[in-house]
């Protein structure tokens, strides 16, 4: 579409697909007038592996490891979402202890995802130090999670009816040290970044999305909340333990890059609160209830929604009554969040493109599936 309008004085810039600040293989074809963007066309699909097609070729249990490979930064959350979806459709009960462990792990995963985003975003904007801080904290977190999950990135820890193994002493000790350290570091982050005038000038008033635009564009997660809409699936359609837990939904007002940044940092604090509460109330008991090896939902369709680090994940499962589903659609938050770029970018500077794209927090393998 863009090529057809080529004239001598237009400048085209291919941002990506191999560019560090495109966070994976995203290709933005930009038409420029000087430094300003006239038109932007995102080209996606470089990491399309056909997860939805794979889901139609195997049983629900066989698909479980795939879930952690879509949004690889929120693998535990995708695990959790998928297990909750299948358990609800098939009527599988989960022991309370297992559900507490899952929530602890999912929220730690959310912190880890936000930490990586925080570091990478500041790196995009030219600040190296926060990246080193964030990865140091994330390393502690990965070590803690590794104690029970056995992996660092593409977790496959949840099972239908529970989790793979119980908490151990090393996990509890590690977490006890991590939570206060993370709180101290959060204060440092605000001192180092949130009050930094260079950072504020790069992000305040940049990439503004108002609430109506955000809703019409299908935004969800921190991007939507930064525009002032307090929509969080954990509140709107509570699942798991969230109705019992005390936490706040941070929102912004201006819907700019700075607000999206602040919302995520505040979410780290809220996730820490959730983890603390869950640890405090952690009941004794089993961590895995018996479940069929290949759960089979009754014929019909089932939609389950979940709040992942980037927004609402929708798992739409259509069963014909067999072990292998007829259809499994994964509605992923970054897909809609990214689709706003063609209307958001025109008129902005190339340097702001990086600030805007980073603030949306896209994970390309999640979008491409």
């Amino acid at each position, binding site marked *: *579409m863009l090529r057809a309008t080529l004239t001598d004085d237009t400048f085209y810039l291919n941002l990506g697909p191999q560019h560090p600040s495109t966070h994976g293989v995203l290709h933005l074809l930009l038409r420029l007038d000087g430094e300003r963007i006239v038109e932007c066309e995102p080209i*996606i*699909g470089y990491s*399309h592996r*056909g997860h*939805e*097609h794979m889901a*139609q*070729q195997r049983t629900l249990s066989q698909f479980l490891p795939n879930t952690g490979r879509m949004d690889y930064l929120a693998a535990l959350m995708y695990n959790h979402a998928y297990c909750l979806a299948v358990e*609800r*459709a098939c009527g599988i009960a989960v022991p309370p202890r297992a559900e507490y462990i899952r929530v602890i792990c999912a929220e730690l995963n959310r912190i880890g995802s936000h930490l990586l985003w925080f570091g990478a975003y500041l790196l995009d904007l030219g600040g190296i130090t926060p990246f080193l801080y964030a990865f140091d904290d994330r390393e502690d977190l990965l070590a803690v999670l590794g104690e029970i999950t056995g992996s660092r990135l593409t977790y496959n820890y949840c099972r239908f009816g529970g989790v793979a193994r119980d908490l151990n002493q090393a996990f509890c000790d590690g977490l006890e040290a991590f939570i206060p350290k993370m709180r101290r570091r959060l204060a440092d982050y605000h001192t180092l970044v949130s009050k930094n005038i260079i950072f504020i000038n790069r992000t305040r008033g940049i990439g503004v999305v108002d609430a109506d635009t955000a*809703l*019409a*564009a*299908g935004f969800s997660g921190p991007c939507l909340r930064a525009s002032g*809409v307090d*929509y969080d699936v954990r509140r*709107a*359609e509570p699942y798991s333990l969230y109705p019992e837990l005390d936490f706040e939904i941070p929102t912004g007002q201006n819907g700019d890059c700075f607000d999206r940044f602040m919302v995520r940092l505040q979410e780290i604090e809220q996730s820490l609160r959730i983890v603390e509460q869950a640890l405090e109330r952690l009941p004794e008991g089993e961590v895995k209830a018996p479940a069929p090896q290949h759960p089979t939902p009754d014929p*019909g*369709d*089932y*939609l*389950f*929604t979940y709040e992942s680090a980037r927004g*609402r994940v*929708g798992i*739409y499962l*259509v069963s*014909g009554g067999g072990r292998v589903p*007829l*259809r499994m*659609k994964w*509605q992923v938050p970054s*897909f*809609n969040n990214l*689709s*706003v770029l063609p*209307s958001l970018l025109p008129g902005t500077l190339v340097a702001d493109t990086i600030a805007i794209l980073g603030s949306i927090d896209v994970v390309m393998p999640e979008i*491409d*599936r």
Partner: protein
Amino acid sequence: MHELKRLLDDRCGSLSWQEAEPALCGYSHTIWLEVERLRCLARVLADSGLVLEFITAVDRGHGLELVYFFSRPAAGWRLKVALRTAEGQPAPSICDIYPVANWQEREVFDMFGQRFDGHPDLKRILLPADADFHPLRHDFQAGEQHDGDHFDLERD
């Protein structure tokens, strides 16, 4: 909800609402309708402040079932709108009413070959532009012919 029902009946003619069990299947009602009435329905829903969550399709081997999920986010209330299209029959695009439908319709086109009338730029979104198949269709068989070297990566 009753107000929305009345509004829809007024502007789009009477529709059949089927109740569903939200605690099991995640939505409260299903509306089955004909292709021609989709745009009218989408306008009323947009005017009433419902958001479009996503569009997808299900291929059971006899035409496509297009599925649209609309919701009122704050209330946690969700509506499923479904319609059937025969082989090769286009559906109306609603991306002028809901901007989010733009990429969603492209994905349905890419995966199922469903055409949307009135879409400004209906082309593949996840698969390469020269792919000659729609992988989520009922009759699609994955095989060697769809491996990477099938595509001309040097193509302009």
